[in-house]
């Protein structure tokens, strides 16, 4: 093998250095992401025509899942459980308010209880919420058991979204809520005809009736092979039991309305501190993310420079060797800087933790109070419902003349 000349060695070393530098640069470019933020809010699409009363679907928004079990590792330290729990109510309320305001639906309510007796049910899960980014998973279905869709919604807001002049009274993530409302309306228009809308309402009504008088209305509904609830036959227009149950349903609406008051109070108390928390959190999260990215980049660059320097330091060419020394020195400096940046990022995490702790201390008692009130009222109402079920069963027995099963007393 022909021995390489010194200048050939130098060229080879230079090539290696350039190659390594190029690879490092490509690696860095490949890792970089570009996030486009916008303060523009997705406009809400509203129903243009008039929807017939019997086709207006009521919507129940369930309380969102906090998603605490699915938080990514790199976001755990930026997530606060109590705040996330409060957010579940907040986001549900915002979705409810948005749907309510576009006039395409019937009555829209936040409902922490069983939703299956409502025409349309919206359930969701908060994947991420840190003031800068909100990701929620939304599932929509209806009373017949038809699954409309499941979709992940993501919104990244800019700093200006927290500017009151820019918000104009809206939530910074209002665009995401509007997209949820738009998608629901679009799906309904595309997939459901008028007859199906009426059918959904009928099924919901009969399901509610079935819950109160199963001995009467269980035969009116059945499940088809696709697992969807279908109406076998309709009750008489002047069905007295159904009239009574409709009256009870009105009371159920009242109960849900009372819950709305609870939630409204909670949102009222939560809104200002929560918005402020999100605004500050936004800054901290932004700085944290930037510093983390800087640290990562410096770490990679430093490592690449050191590796390149080690490779080039054996060169016979003095210039290459000096360059290699420079690379080694620079790489070491970059790595040191990466560690410093990480420490700085950690400071922002601590600042964020302080913010979060303060917010949690303020909001946790309110969340607990809200939950207690909802549970208490729900329990009271359910107890009343139980009594009504029994009275209805008695009435049914009287009207039909059936022999009601009796309970024998112990003797």
């Amino acid at each position, binding site marked *: 093998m022909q021995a390489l000349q010194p200048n050939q060695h130098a060229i080879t070393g230079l090539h290696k250095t350039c190659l390594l530098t190029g690879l490092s640069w490509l690696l860095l470019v490949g890792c970089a992401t570009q996030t486009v933020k916008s303060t523009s809010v997705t406009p809400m699409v*509203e*129903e243009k025509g*008039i*929807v017939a*009363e019997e086709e207006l679907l009521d919507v129940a928004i369930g309380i969102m899942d906090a998603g605490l079990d699915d938080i990514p590792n790199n976001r755990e330290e930026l997530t606060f459980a109590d705040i996330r729990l409060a957010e579940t109510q907040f986001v549900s309320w915002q979705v409810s*308010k948005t749907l*309510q*305001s576009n*006039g395409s639906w*019937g*009555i*829209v*309510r936040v409902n922490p209880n069983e939703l299956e007796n409502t025409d349309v049910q919206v359930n969701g899960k908060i994947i991420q919420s840190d003031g800068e980014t909100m990701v929620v998973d939304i599932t929509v279905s209806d009373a017949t058991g038809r699954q409309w869709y499941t979709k992940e919604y993501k919104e990244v807001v800019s700093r200006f979204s927290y*500017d*009151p002049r820019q918000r104009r*009274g809206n939530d910074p993530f209002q665009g995401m809520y509007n997209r949820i409302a738009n998608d629901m309306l679009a799906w309904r228009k595309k997939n459901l005809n008028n007859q199906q809308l009426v059918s959904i309402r009928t099924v919901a009504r009969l399901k509610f009736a079935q819950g109160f008088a199963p001995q009467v209305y269980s035969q009116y509904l059945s499940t088809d092979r696709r697992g969807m609830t279908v109406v076998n036959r309709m009750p008489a227009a002047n069905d007295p039991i159904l009239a*009574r149950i*409709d*009256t009870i349903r009105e*009371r159920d609406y*009242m*109960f849900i*309305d*009372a819950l709305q*008051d609870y939630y*409204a*109070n909670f*949102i*009222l*108390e939560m*809104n*200002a*501190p929560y*918005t*402020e928390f999100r605004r500050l959190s936004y800054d901290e999260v932004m700085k944290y993310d930037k510093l983390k990215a800087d640290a990562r980049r410096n770490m990679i660059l430093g490592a690449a420079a050191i590796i390149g320097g080690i490779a080039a330091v054996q060169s016979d060419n003095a210039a290459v060797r000096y360059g290699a020394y420079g690379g080694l020195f620079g790489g070491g400096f970059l790595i040191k800087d990466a560690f410093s940046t990480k420490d700085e990022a950690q400071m922002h995490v601590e600042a964020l933790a302080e913010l979060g702790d303060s917010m949690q201390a303020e909001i946790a008692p309110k969340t607990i109070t809200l939950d207690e009130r909802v549970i*208490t009222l729900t329990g*009271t*109402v359910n*107890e*009343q419902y*139980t*009594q*009504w*079920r*029994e*009275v209805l069963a*008695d*009435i049914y*027995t*009287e*009207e039909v*003349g059936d*022999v*009601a*099963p*009796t*309970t*024998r*007393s112990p*003797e």
Partner: protein
Amino acid sequence: MKNMMNNSIFRLVTFSLTCALSAALQLCLSPHFALAQEDPVFRVPELPDVDPARVQINTDIVERDRSAVAVPSFEDNGAPSSANSYPNPQGSRGNSGNTGSGSGSSPSTIFSGGPITPSPGSPPPNSTQSGPQGQSGGFDVNVSVSGGPQMPTLSIPTLPGMPGSPSSSPGSPGGQETMNSSSRSSSNGSSGGGPTNGGSTSNSTSMPGDVIASGQNGSQNSAQSGSTNEGSQGGGSDGSSSSSNGTLVDSTTNGTSPTVTEKTNGTTAVAGGGSARIRVLDARLEESFGVFDGMIISEREKAQNEANAAGSDVMGSSGAGGSGGADGSGDSDYARVLDEAIVIASSPDNSSGGGMLPEGAKVREGDFAYNEQIVANIPEDIPDASDDDVVARQLREAAMSEPDADLREKLWDEYRRYVGLPTKTDSE
């Protein structure tokens, strides 16, 4: 010889013992003894002129067979017609006449006093026949358990002139063979008289000398309460009611729902057909609806008051530069959330309370038609609020919320002056 005598004596003693044991065993197995020893539910008071051996209480709960029921019909005076009534064989049971509780004018009456005549082979609804009735010298007591542990029951007030009251059990005049039975089942609300909290517990109390159905009362499903009767029969008279001769059955649901108080006098019987009972049940439903509405409205009022209080706090902290005003949007957030807090009200017609429909929402059947929404009367020359600053907005809000017309107009003038519009007084 001696052995023979001993043997005879032994046999005699053995025979005597056997006889004694048989007699004792027979006594033990007699119904009365069984009732007194084994049945923890009923206690039959000592009746001086009634042979206890003839007292028989049937604790069976008999399912109703409506097809075989002869429903006593009510006349206007509240007495069932004789054709469908059970006779009082002795005719000596207190006020045998027409003093049944809840006369015919009361649609919710299901119990009635007065003589009752059994239809052959057909027990009355809500009653149990456990043997031949109308035996001379015996008496029947059918205890009707009304108002289960979780059932809201309707209170029927005591009619004037009707003997007996919840607070007194006068018994029968002259101390005749009367049975004062009082069964009180109460359902205590779980939250201090909350309107719909009834039924969580059931307490059955008994009065001395009463026929108590506490065990059954507590164990029965309230859906069947009021239709489940326990009867006891012996000689004397029929009393297929919750009480006889001035006593009462008071089914009370404390704090949760109205109660049913059925009072009968003398020989009473379950009366009233299906429609009457449906009316009673409907009345119960209506009553509980009222209680429920009251509770919900009270909750909403409470929530509204809290919202007002919280709003004041938010406004205060905003003005003081607190967290609400950190971004300068505290008060606007407050106003916005208050607007959002007003949800679609869907209360029925018979309840109070208001609500506002959001923009775009359509009034639909079942929604609460609240036509008296307060619409602020904004003068025509007042522009929209988009260019208002804080002071202008406060002036606007003060003017919009001012009920007095003169003051309101002055406030609007103040607003006009502030924003640079010509005031009404200037133009005049």
